[in-house]
């Protein structure tokens, strides 16, 4: 073999096969967004179909269930047309979707008020409660888990690890209604520090938010601890350690982004599950949110209200999932470019 390659040949582009440079903001991001938005559209469509089917799937005649056996045929007929049960199923769906698009969710059977007004009053309360709970979960759970992992990484203390595991297991097993009951007893009845009645006011929201956040906080802290330990064992951390960076820099620039990635991937479901906890907790503290409203509506067979609230809860869940995806895309470049290879 005699040929000598001149050094200048070195930078020449390879056979079209070398990895092409990609920079954020280019095609991968729009492809990524498009794909995620497509997913959201499907989810919303299925959700709408699901809420639509609630009324149609009720065994027997929903109108009869509503008006009772003693009602006259005219009353029954009126309710039927109000429910739109006269038309064919396809036509009913079209009407339902049409109403939704124009913002109409129907009127409550019980109060005859528009469902949209009910939601307008109650959704902000629920959103505030869920948002505060989410904030507590992250603000407490993340540093606790990460700090624990960092401490254990630096000096292994056996009791520290088992204590953390025990505490988070116990905490994670506390249902929000038990936590709520305990909190009411302690803070409202025994020491009379905060009201037992929930609401939108700052003093009224603390106990409900703590109830919702308590168990997820423990589970989240444990998750973050595990993920941080895993990241600290990775080879790129050894690389970073070889640079002898100050601790804060090491954790902030090398550990944190990767922990956020893996935590979000696994913890997305946990955030969505907060919604369920909110619904239950509202009933413990009698918070005037959509959680109490939906339970009343179910007990009173108030279908338009049920449909409206389930729709809203579903949309919230979809929004959270979407937000998690976007954050993942921002933090972890591989998520975005993975779309291309799929």
């Amino acid at each position, binding site marked *: 073999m005699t040929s000598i390659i001149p050094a200048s040949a070195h930078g020449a582009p390879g056979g079209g096969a070398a990895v092409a440079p990609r920079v954020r903001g280019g095609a991968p991001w729009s492809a990524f967004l498009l794909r995620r938005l497509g997913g959201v559209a499907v989810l919303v469509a299925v959700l709408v179909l699901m809420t639509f089917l*609630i009324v149609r799937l009720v065994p027997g005649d929903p109108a009869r269930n509503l008006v009772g056996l003693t009602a006259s045929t005219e009353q029954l007929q009126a309710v039927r047309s109000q429910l739109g049960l006269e038309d064919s199923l396809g036509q009913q769906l079209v009407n339902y979707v049409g109403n939704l698009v124009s913002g109409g969710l129907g009127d409550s059977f019980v109060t005859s008020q528009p469902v949209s007004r009910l939601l307008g009053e109650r959704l902000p309360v629920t959103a505030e409660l869920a948002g505060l709970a989410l904030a507590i979960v992250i603000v407490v759970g993340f540093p606790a888990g990460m700090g624990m992992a960092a401490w254990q990484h630096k000096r292994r203390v056996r009791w520290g690890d088992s204590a953390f595991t025990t505490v988070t297991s116990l905490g994670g097993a506390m249902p*929000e209604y038990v936590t709520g009951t305990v909190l009411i007893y302690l803070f409202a*009845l025994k020491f009379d520090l905060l009201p*037992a009645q929930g609401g939108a006011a700052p003093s009224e929201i603390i106990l409900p938010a703590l109830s919702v956040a308590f168990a997820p906080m423990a589970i989240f802290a444990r998750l973050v601890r595990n993920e941080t330990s895993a990241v600290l064992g990775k080879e790129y951390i050894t690389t970073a350690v070889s640079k002898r960076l100050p601790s804060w820099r090491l954790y902030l620039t090398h550990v944190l982004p990767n922990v956020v990635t893996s935590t979000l991937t696994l913890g997305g479901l946990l955030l969505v599950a907060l919604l369920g906890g909110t619904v239950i907790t509202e009933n413990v503290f009698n918070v005037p949110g959509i959680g109490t409203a939906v339970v009343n509506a179910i*007990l009173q067979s108030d279908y338009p209200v*049920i449909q409206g609230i389930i729709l809203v809860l579903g949309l919230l869940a979809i929004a959270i999932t979407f937000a998690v995806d976007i954050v993942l895309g921002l933090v972890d470049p591989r998520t975005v470019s993975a779309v291309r290879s799929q």
Partner: protein
Amino acid sequence: MTTSKRRKPFALWLGAALLLALSVLAVVAPIIWGDSAAALSSEVRGGPSAEHLLGTDPLGRDVLDRTLVAARLTLAMAAVTTLIAVGGGIVLGATIVVAGRRVRGLGERLIDLMIAYPPIIVALSITAIFRPSVGSVVVAIGLAFVPQFARLTNTLASSVSSKDYVVVARLVGLRPTRLLFRHVIPNLAGPLLVLTSVGFASAIITLSGLSFIGLGVQEPSYDWGRLLAQALQDLGVNPIEAFGPGIAILITGLAAGLLGDGLNQFLDPRGPVRRRRRRRAATSGGADARTPHAALLAPAPDAVVSVRDLTIAASPESVGAPLVRGVSLDVRAGEILGIVGESGSGKSLTAMAIARLLAPGLHWSAETLSINGADVSDAREQTPVRLATDVGVVFQDPSSCFNPARHVGPQITEVARVHQGLSKRAANELAIERLREARVSSPEVRMRQYPHELSGGMRQRAMIAMALLTSPSLLIADEPTTALDVTVQADVLQLLHRISTTRNMAIVLISHDIKVVSTLCHRVCVMYAGRIVEELTVEDLREGRVCHPYTRALLDAAPRLEPSARQVPLIPLPGRPPQPDQPIVGCAFADRCPLVTDRCRQEDPALRALPRGGVAACHVSTGPLEDLLVTQ
């Protein structure tokens, strides 16, 4: 070696015992306490008393009795719910795995879709349709959990069925059903059991929750959730009423959770992890009084790196021999020192100790560990900066050595920015220069890319460029080419050679491949069971003038690319190196050595200087071993 009987975790015992006790309670409680739980009394909303340990409810019924009786309904509901959720999930998940490619893709997407809705939505919808009752709430929660369990089953089953042992069993001619029952299901059973207990815990908590808010069990039936809801109404008057049902829910949920955790630990093939206890650093790591290598080496004031009597141990009180025993070495500027040995020989630990990158928890000590004459064995203030700027490190696997979440550029420039205070621009220019030196094409573009966008060889070059950034005087390369293809390996070896000559840099190259080491290095240390057994020049190694039987064995076991190689059988080395938990008596190589004598089994040979130069640790051999082993 793993013992076949593993310690059963405490959590497993406790969880199982609690659940068993609860099941017995569920069966017998309504029979024993059924009547007393229904009996009204005049003591309404009573506090705890000898007669009513947990007080009475608004109708004067005994709360303890009612809690005990409610166990049957609560647990039965939870059991059926778990059956629906886990059973449905397993059937759905497994069907998707077994089905054809197209159904599989579709099914997996469907599950992904369903999992996006929180279970509460599904549960609320179903109770809305069928009206709140015991039946509807059980079906509602059961169905609501199906997608999650289907997803988990699906993931588990596809990971098991793509395992090599399943592939091979299929080739052996196993029928699909037999394959399923003999390989897939036994390996799935454990994780699915864990899943079931987790499912039970979620079921009991969620069911009680729905009963609590009034969507589950309706009057006059009652479960724990219902009892707790009742107690909440009376909380101001009679707080003790909440204690019974509250604690019952907690204990049951916890028991199922404990069982799941315990099973998980028990089924983990690695067994219960025993953490090593950390003690104050011990200086007598196990290297005995005879530390001849250090004595043999003259002080080397011109050495870039100088190590004397390095010992590394897992923990001071561990029974086995230290992982690295009394290693001493010097590397001069412009010199490439190779350290070669099999896995577990301590070669990488030695390299990491020099770079002060040992994993926390390992104990090390050294008489001397200096770089450019400066002691780096302690935590003096200058040490971290000196290590960061004077020592470059290149690791084995370039795909995992860059932080995947950050661009390549900032990672390369980091050391100069942090320790030398370079501006971003100056650091970038420096980095591009180094990338060019490492023959990375279009370096400006690479700086703005993520690590996963570079090919393997390119990443390793970028890694080398990063190590060179601050013009260190020592480069430690730990198996830098093991993960690379041969053609890329050749390029990287050449790159390392050029760097060492143009920069007059000292390089320590760690490799398991004696051919790589003898191609690139000037001097070679052979390590076995934590110590250097021979040190020789590369000329001697290339010509086969080796003294230690282990070095000879490494040469004889490596196939060569020569026309005659087929005719000369390789000579395998019998046995295996001593395990880390075994104490070493005498020469660690004795059990595998064809030249072994009685002395070898009693006395660890000291390193001694050889007539041809270099050192070796062998009682028997002093001169070049040529065909000695071939004739054995």
